[in-house]
């Protein structure tokens, strides 16, 4: 159905130019993501896996992507002493994005869900700046739900989520090599 051009003024209102170099959103805190991904869990037992160089090489060989850090924090989701699976938090630092995400993995190595905790999109080196790392520090959703402030309502060339999917693949390898029961 064609519409005359003046109709469109109802759908796209003029907007003052806001200097908004940062398109950033925090969606979930770690505890919020844990409850969302493992609604039946009663507790989350935290542990840190430490990898030596040989283990990092094994992860890379199996996942095809580099294990950037020497350790990975994981949480075992539990209910009445039973393991419901594993919860892991990871970061992607790409050319255009800095993303923190959480993955839930079942005891037998299936991805139960992926949630983005924090999304920063920018250009150039800004994402590597330490200031960018102040993510999900005890904020609640209500604190930062402001439509007109730093919300990434961006249209444009579509940014690939491949970095995150590669990260999920790597965490599945970490699960298989270090957490799955033989």
């Amino acid at each position, binding site marked *: 159905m064609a519409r005359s051009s003046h109709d469109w003024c109802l759908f796209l209102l003029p907007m003052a130019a806001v200097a908004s170099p940062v398109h950033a959103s925090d969606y979930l805190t770690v505890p919020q993501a844990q409850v969302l991904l493992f609604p039946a869990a009663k507790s989350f037992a935290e542990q840190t896996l430490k990898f030596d160089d040989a283990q990092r090489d094994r992860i890379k060989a199996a996942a095809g992507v580099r294990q950037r850090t020497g350790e990975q924090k994981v949480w075992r989701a539990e209910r009445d002493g039973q393991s419901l699976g594993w919860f892991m938090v990871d970061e992607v630092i790409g050319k255009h994005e800095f993303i923190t995400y959480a993955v839930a993995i079942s005891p037998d190595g299936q991805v139960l869900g992926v*949630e983005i905790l924090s999304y920063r999109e920018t250009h150039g080196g800004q994402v590597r700046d330490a200031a960018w790392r102040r993510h999900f520090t005890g904020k609640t959703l209500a604190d930062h739900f402001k439509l007109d402030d730093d919300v990434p309502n961006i249209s444009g060339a579509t940014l690939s989520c491949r970095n995150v999917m590669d990260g999920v693949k790597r965490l599945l390898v970490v699960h298989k090599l270090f957490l799955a029961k033989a």
Partner: protein
Amino acid sequence: MHELRRMRPLLGTFVEVGARGPNAAQALDAAFACIAAAQDRWSFQDAGSELSRLNAAGGEPLAVHPATVRLLRLAAALMRRSGGLFNCTVGGALVQQGVLPDHGGPPALPRGCAEDIETGRRWARLGRPVRVTLDGIAKGMAVDEAVVALRQSGATAGWINAGGDLRVFGDMVLPVHRREDDGHMTPLGALRDAAVASSRVPSPGEASDPAFPGCLIGPPEHPPRPGIWTVLARTAWRADALTKVAACAAPADREALVASLGGRLLMQGEHAT
């Protein structure tokens, strides 16, 4: 009144859903389930998707979901009405170029036409060995279906942004920016009860950026013009499809053609040459 928003990696990009209403959390779940179902049906990359099975069916009718029938019919109608500037049967050419994966089967024609797509109430069939690729409009349709899911779940307002295909509904205005090639953000305006989509056509010889993998090919006599093409429409599938029409149309006809097909070209995308 609850307001929630959340983001998940889906449809090859990052999908943000926001909802306002008494059951905002359930509404978000319903919207994401809808988008995940769209991904399962219409992904070209996934050899097991309904779309890939249709492409591999060798001209036999394939039972498909009614939403797939609806999308194929909309796509074929727009192919006809745009004189082929929009074309969803170019999967063969994209496979040849290495942009899309080859799932095997007999070699495909580089491109086909609207008549190659036949549909019945719950089936579809390709009359010639073409490969249908629904990428952009599938993303738009996923957004539109997820908006329905949000509403049915009681959301009074909300929005979905699937990697730049975005739609807002209800009593809400959404400030929208466009990401330019140099990274700066151009304000497009405050979107209300409508959709915006953009497609980027790289300059000839430009090195491809795996972060922005989009690829568009047009009819041989109307190659897409480099730039970012942004269209406003009432639905996301239409906005996305019309970005392709805008990119391939002759400059003199461009705005009028997009308008006649139910959209509005927001910004001239063409790079200064």
